[in-house]
């Protein structure tokens, strides 16, 4: 990997993020990024730019529903694109801090 990450794959320096870096991180997660993924990556980066907080699952779903519509703003859709824990996986790929609110 061209950028330093911690053991769980989160970027050490958030400024290292770029679209190719996102693709690398995603590949390490077993995800090939499609336009559907990118729409959500842009959405969480915008969320972080506004609030300086990586969104937890609830606000992520709410945001996605508002911006992308109900068929994308639901947890099943997010789980399909970012399996496991969508809020965490998305934060990782989008170059945001690990969501502190989880656990």
């Amino acid at each position, binding site marked *: 990997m061209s950028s330093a990450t*911690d*053991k*769980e794959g989160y970027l050490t320096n958030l400024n290292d993020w770029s679209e190719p870096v996102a693709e690398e991180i995603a590949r390490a997660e077993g995800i090939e990024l499609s336009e559907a993924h990118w729409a959500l990556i842009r959405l969480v980066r915008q969320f972080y730019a506004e609030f300086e907080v990586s969104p937890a699952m609830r606000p992520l779903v709410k945001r996605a529903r508002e911006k992308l519509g109900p068929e994308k703003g639901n947890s099943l859709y997010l789980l399909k694109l970012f399996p496991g824990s969508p809020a965490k996986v998305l934060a990782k790929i989008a170059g945001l801090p690990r969501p*502190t*609110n*989880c*656990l």
Partner: protein
Amino acid sequence: MIYGLARMIFGIAVHGAPYGSQASASALRFAEAAVAAGHSLHRVFFYHDGVNTANGLMVPPQDDPSPQQGWVTLAERHGIELAVCIAAALKRGLVNEEERNRYGLNAASLHPAFSIVGLGQLIDAIGSSDRFVTFAA
């Protein structure tokens, strides 16, 4: 003052650091008095600088003990969970073995009687107690 017979479940939050504030020591005396009066206490939640109470690498002077030992004794005797907020703990260098491995750090610093938990456990402590008391910094 009338001493009622009501047995209550208390929740306690500690927000101030030992030595930096009285919060942890005040909370400990309250907790001991509550338990002595027959009330129950399931969890003490350490937040803000209060997480420093859980530092396992402290060497307190013999004539100025940290409240830590008191918490450990009380917790062991009465089955109380000493819960440290993970977000507040990590940034202050308080890690258990699991977090030490996760971040590749040299040493674990958390006293083994304390457990690292999420902020949800604070909400749970509030939700499952009759009375909730914060000991501020």
